[in-house]
């Protein structure tokens, strides 16, 4: 995690053995500078990493089996560069992603698209912002915080369905009063909440809108302002005999399983700053499946064919494609340790 864009507490701001990340923040924050000036604080003496600095490195998130992310599960989600969790409730999930509604620790700004959660559920009164739902990757789930009661989980589903279907929120649900005017201050709160949670949707949005990896590759290279040829240049040593493999991949012209080692693919994912996630693997698997050109055959049979001078591979069956994709995906899972 890098330094938080948010101002530190006054305890940390005036800590003589302060954290380097706090000092880094202060150099560009007039607010924090003015606090220190007021009290003639010269700044922390510490430079470089301290014991305190270790605090900034979060413990490994507790691994959550995606299957446990079902409707009504309240979890904390992470995104790499932020030091706050997003507490949210699962509305819908599969093995790669979860649609979640952020939870606000207040009911002061409840509208009719916020589900009120009584204190008994989380230990504090809260609301699920159904209007603010977004998608996270299952790897972002750090810890399970709690679980909505069954009636509340059903209410959440009903409210979410009503929103998707463009219906009015069902009257009988524990929700707030509707917004009737543009000048309603709850809309200001909602804009702040949109800002607060946006970063948590980013990993999933990088992988959204595609059925396979090639479009993601093209789009991401463009977003980063990196040419495919540049990527070829950076990664040419990863794949023998094909210095233009990234460009070929972007066109769907390459049999990944036969030509691109898993380590090379991992390097490409890192270069593109894409998340190492099940969703990414799924997209790569779809590319392997679509571009598989060689039938799987026992090694002895391949050698025999070659001895007889028959080097041309037979056309893969659907089963061959499936096996190729599965084996490539399994290798990625092992390589990424997820």
């Amino acid at each position, binding site marked *: 995690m890098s330094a938080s864009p948010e101002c530190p507490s006054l305890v940390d701001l005036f800590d003589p053995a302060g954290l380097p990340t706090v000092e880094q923040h202060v150099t560009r924050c007039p607010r924090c500078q003015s606090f220190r000036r007021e009290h003639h604080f010269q700044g922390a003496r510490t430079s470089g990493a301290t014991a305190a600095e270790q605090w900034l490195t979060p413990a490994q998130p507790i691994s959550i089996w995606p299957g446990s992310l079902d409707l009504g599960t309240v979890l904390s989600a992470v995104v790499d560069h932020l030091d706050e969790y997003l507490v949210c409730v699962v509305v819908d999930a599969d093995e790669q992603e979860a649609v979640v509604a952020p939870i606000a620790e207040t009911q002061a700004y409840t509208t009719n698209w916020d589900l009120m959660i009584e204190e008994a559920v989380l230990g504090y009164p809260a609301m699920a912002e159904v209007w603010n739902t977004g998608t996270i990757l299952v790897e972002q789930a750090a810890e399970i915080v*709690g679980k909505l009661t069954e009636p509340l989980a059903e209410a959440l589903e009903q409210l979410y369905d009503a929103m998707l279907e463009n219906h009015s929120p069902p009257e009988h649900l524990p929700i707030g009063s509707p917004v009737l*005017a543009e000048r309603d201050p709850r809309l200001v709160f909602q804009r702040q909440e949109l800002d607060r949670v946006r970063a948590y949707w980013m990993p999933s949005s990088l992988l959204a809108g595609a059925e396979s990896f090639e479009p993601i590759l093209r789009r991401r290279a463009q977003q980063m302002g990196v040419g495919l040829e540049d990527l070829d240049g950076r990664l040419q040593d990863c794949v023998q005999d094909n210095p233009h493999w990234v460009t070929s991949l972007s066109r769907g012209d390459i049999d990944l399983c036969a030509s691109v080692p898993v380590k090379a693919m991992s390097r490409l994912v890192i270069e593109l700053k894409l998340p190492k996630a099940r969703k990414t693997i799924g997209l790569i698997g779809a590319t392997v499946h679509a571009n598989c050109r060689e039938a799987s055959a026992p090694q002895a049979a391949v050698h025999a064919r070659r001895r007889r001078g028959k080097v041309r591979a037979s056309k893969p069956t659907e089963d061959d494609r499936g096996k190729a994709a599965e084996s490539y995906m399994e290798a990625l899972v092992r390589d990424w340790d997820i």
Partner: protein
Amino acid sequence: MTEQQLITLRRQLRGGEQPPDWVVAELRRVADALVRYGRLPASMSPYGSWDEEATEELMQGWMEGKLLRGDLRALADRARTPVAFRRLAERSLRHWLLNQRERSQAQNLFGRMARLLEQDQTTFKVTQAAERKQDTWWTLANKPEAEPFAGPDRELLSAAWSLGEFVLVRFSSEQTKLSPLLSGPDLRRFVVGMLDATGRALTLNLLQRALRDRFDLGDVQLGDLEAAGELASPEGVAEDAVLREAAGAVIGELDARQTAVLLGLQSEQTSAALAAELNCSPATITNDKAAIAKLVARYSENDSERDQLLKKVADVLYEEGA
């Protein structure tokens, strides 16, 4: 506080355990630092100045009024690191302090609302008298046929929210007097707006409920209204020392991006340029501008004071040595 302690704390609180001593000590550090460095106006102190006793009272009030009512668990759920925990705790304490002030002034506010209805016969009219003052039905004088409101609280609250933003005044240079929570014109706008938006007659009880829910205020004993004495009028923030104190309080409530937006606007940067510089959308800048305006308005009584205060905030931020 270490990372591991934070993980343990989270589990303990979820298991229904009481907060351990070390976390109370950590929270006390947060409270001490806020009192010492946080530029809190003296008017926010229970005794009119910030000393050890006032700090202790602040800590106790915060623990009992907020942290032990679930807020500590919410903090622990959201903080990923001890640094984030302390930052969120300080924010919680600031909010609690401000809300306390609003709640303590609620009685004053309801008394003023009653007086407003009674004194302005050209705007308001009784449609149905009652034995108790708070049960009398009021309507707008130009809508004498309005029926008594019989809808749900949700409808009442929607109407209250639809009236837009109200600035809650939280600061007065004369700390012994009760500051009004809403300025006179805003209180009038609220009462007229509620009668107009619902199109019904309302009682003081209903108006009180709308006000309480809209501004998250405490309950008020309406029986005490008869005994309410003369209420203080707002005082300005004219003197420089007071203005400086108010500026300090405003800076304390700003976040880093809002500070950058305020300074950018003071140096006549456009919103688009600021958005590019701060790597956010123009809508975010618009939000921040509104938040700054609201914050400054809370600590001043009129446009002239608002301008002065805004300038003072920028001066303090830019002060010599910056």
